[in-house]
C-alpha cells in the first residue's frame, strides 16, 4: 500500500467522533405513516440497487463516460425529498442518480440516459453527469462542483417574485463549499430571504482531499452564522434526521423567513466515480463506515426493530426494487440510439432553430 490520505486509526477515530457528535437515533417522526416510511426505504433500496449495477455495466461498456455513485448517501436525498411537496424543486450535483429517484423519477429513463439512448431523460445528450428529470422538479445534475448553487437561488427567486409557495432544495457537496459561488449564493439568498434550502452532502472527501484538510473548521454548518441564517448538522446516514431538518427549513422558507444551511454528514466509503481506483487511500479504511453506518441496512433494520414492518415485507420491498432496476437495465440495453439528425436539436429554442437552423 502506498501513502494513504487516511490511516485506519484516523478513520476509526473519525467514525467514533461521528457517532458521538453527529449520529442521531433512528426514530420516525410521528407524521410519517407506515406507508411513508416504507416508501423511504423503497427509494433508498432503488438507489442502492441502481448504483450497485452501474459500475459493472460501465466495465462491460454498456455505460459510457463517467458516473458517480450515490451509494452511502441514500438517506440524504430520500430523507430530504420526503419532506417536500409536488411542485417543489431541487438542484443536483455530479452525483445525481439518487436525486432523480428521490424525486420520483423513472429508473428506466435514467438507465437509458446512462447508456446514451434516445429515450433517456436527456435524449442521450447528458449522461449520468447531467441527469435531469425536470418534470419531477429535479433541475439537473451538473459536472462543475458548486455551480448549482445560484441556479437554486434563482428558482427560489422565481417563487418569491411570482408569489408561489414552492421551496427549492440545493443539493451540493463539501467540495462545493470552497467555491466562491457557494458563498455568493448563500449571501444573496440570505439577504433576499429566498425560499431555498442549502443541503450540503458532506461525504468528507473531495475526490482525494479529506475535508479536514480543505477547511480549517470541519463544521460546514457553522458557516451559516456568517450569512445570518440558521445552520444545522445532521446525521446523513439517517433519513429521518435529514427529513426533520428539511421539513423545518421548508416551513421557514415558505413563511418567507429565508434560507437554511443543512449539513448532512456521511462518509463516501466507495470510490469517487466508476473509474476511481482510490489510490489516495487504503480502501480498508472505508470498511468501518460501510459496515457500521450503511444507511440502507440501517433503515431496513429500523423498520423491523420498530415493528413498522416485518422482515419479510422489508425484504420484499428490496427485492422489488432490485427487480425494477434489472428491468430498467434490460429496457435500456434494448432501447434505440439517438438518431444522427438529433445532433443539432435543443441547442437553441425550437422557434430559433426553425428560423436560423440548429447550429
Amino acid at each position, binding site marked *: 500500500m502506498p501513502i494513504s490520505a487516511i490511516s485506519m486509526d484516523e478513520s476509526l477515530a473519525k467514525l467514533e467522533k461521528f457517532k458521538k457528535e453527529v449520529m442521531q437515533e433512528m426514530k420516525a417522526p410521528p407524521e410519517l405513516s407506515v406507508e411513508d416510511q416504507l416508501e423511504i426505504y423503497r427509494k433508498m433500496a432503488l438507489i442502492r440497487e441502481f448504483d450497485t449495477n452501474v459500475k459493472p455495466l460501465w466495465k462491460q461498456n454498456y455505460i459510457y463516460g463517467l458516473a458517480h455513485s450515490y451509494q452511502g448517501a441514500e438517506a440524504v436525498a430520500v430523507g430530504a425529498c420526503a419532506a417536500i411537496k409536488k411542485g417543489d424543486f431541487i438542484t443536483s450535483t455530479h452525483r445525481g442518480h439518487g436525486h432523480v429517484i428521490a424525486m420520483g423519477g423513472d429508473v428506466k429513463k435514467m438507465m437509458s440516459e446512462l447508456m446514451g439512448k434516445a429515450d433517456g431523460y*436527456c435524449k442521450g445528450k447528458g449522461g449520468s453527469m447531467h441527469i435531469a428529470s425536470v418534470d419531477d422538479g429535479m433541475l439537473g445534475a451538473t459536472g462543475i462542483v458548486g455551480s448549482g448553487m445560484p441556479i437554486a437561488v434563482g428558482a427560489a427567486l422565481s417563487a418569491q417574485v411570482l408569489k408561489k409557495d414552492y421551496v427549492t432544495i440545493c443539493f451540493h457537496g463539501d467540495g462545493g463549499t470552497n467555491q466562491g459561488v457557494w458563498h455568493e449564493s448563500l449571501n444573496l439568498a440570505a439577504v433576499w430571504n429566498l425560499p431555498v434550502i442549502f443541503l450540503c452532502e458532506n461525504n468528507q472527501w473531495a475526490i482525494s482531499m479529506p475535508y479536514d484538510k480543505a477547511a480549517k473548521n470541519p463544521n460546514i454548518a457553522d458557516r451559516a452564522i456568517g450569512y445570518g441564517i440558521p445552520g444545522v448538522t445532521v446525521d446523513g446516514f439517517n433519513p429521518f434526521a435529514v427529513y426533520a431538518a428539511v421539513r423545518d427549513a421548508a416551513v421557514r422558507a415558505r413563511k418567507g423567513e429565508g434560507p437554511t444551511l443543512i449539513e448532512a454528514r456521511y462518509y463516501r466509503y466507495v470510490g469517487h466515480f466508476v473509474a476511481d481506483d482510490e489510490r489516495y487511500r487504503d480502501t480498508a479504511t472505508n470498511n468501518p463506515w460501510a459496515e457500521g453506518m450503511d444507511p440502507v441496512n440501517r433503515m431496513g433494520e429500523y423498520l423491523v426493530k420498530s415493528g413498522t414492518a416485518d422482515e419479510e415485507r422489508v425484504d420484499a420491498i428490496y427485492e422489488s426494487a432490485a427487480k425494477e432496476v434489472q428491468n430498467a437495465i434490460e429496457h435500456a440495453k434494448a432501447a434505440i440510439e439517438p438518431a444522427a439528425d438529433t445532433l443539432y436539436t*435543443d441547442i437553441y429554442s425550437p422557434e430559433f432553430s426553425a428560423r436560423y437552423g440548429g447550429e
Partner: protein
Amino acid sequence: MSRTITIKQALNEAHMEEFERDPTIIIMGCDVGFRGNPFGLTKGLYEKFGAERVRDTPISEAAIVGTCLGAAATGLRPIAEILFSDWITIPMDQIVNQIAKIRYMFGGKINVPLVIRAPVGAGGGQAAQHSQSFEAWFSHVPGLQVVMPITPYDAKGLFKTAIRGNDPVLFFEHKRGYEITGEVPDEGVDYTVPFGEAVVRREGKDVTIVAVSIMAHKALLAAEALHQLGIDCEVIDPRTIYPFDYETVIKSVSKTHRLIVTHESNRRSGIGAEIVSQVVDMAFEELDEKPVIVAGLNVPMPFNRTLESMVIPSEEKIKQAVLQMMDRA
C-alpha cells in the same frame, strides 16, 4: 413619424416598455436599481416597478448570473447587468457551462429566456480591465447569442427581441456609443429588430467593410473621406454576431470583390478572423483581393492617452487599409 434620441435613451425606453408589457421580466445587477445604472440606462425603472423586479445586488457576478439562470428556468425573464463587460469573466462558468448548455444537456426540457447586458469598448483612459470586448468568446460557444447594436433604433429593437426570446443573449452595448443619436419610431410604437439581419449602412461598389459595433460609425466616416478620393465603400453593420448574416456580406462581396472586416477588440482570434474565414469558405471566387482585418492591437489596453489611441482602431486605419487594397496608398 419618428424622433431622434440617444442609444442610452433607447435602451431606457426598451426596458420601461418591456417591464410594462411583461410582469415576468426582472433585472438585477450592481447599481441597477436605486442608482439607475452608472450611465442612467435603468433610470426610473426602480421607482416605477419596485425593488421586487429591479434588484440591486451585492458585488457577486457569478451569483447574479447563475441566479438569473435559475429564475429563467422557472418562469421569469431575467436580465443580468454586468457593470463593465470585462467582469463577465467572473460568471464565466455560469455562462459557458450552465446557461449555454442546460437546454441541450437536459434534453430540451429547460427554456433559458435570459439577457446578459454589459457595456463593452475602449477609450477614455479606462485601461486594461475596463476596456475589453469579448464578442468572439461568446460567439464561440454553441447555445449563446451575441448582439452588438450601435444605433438607437437597433438598440431598442434588438433588446426587445432579446428579452422576448427563449434563449440566452449576450447584449453588448458600446459605452462610447451611449450618446450616439438616431431616429426611432414615436413613443408607443412597438417594434423589434430581428437577429441575424445585417444592415447596409452605406452602399458602394469598390470595397465591402464589415464593421462591428462602434466601428460601423468609424467606417462610415472613413467611407465619406474615401468618397472624396473617388472610392466607394459599402459599409455593413452586422448588428448581431451570432446569428450572423453572411448572406448580406456575400451579396456585397459579390459586387465589390473586396472585403475589410473591422472590430475594436484585439485582432488575435477575434471575430474578424471568423468572418473572413466564413466568407472565404462561401465565396472565395468572388474575392479579387486578400481580405484584411482592421482591429485592436494585441496588447492589454494601456492607460496613457497616446498609447491607448495606438491600440484602438481608428477611421484613419480603415481608410489606409482601403487605400492599400485599392493600390492607392
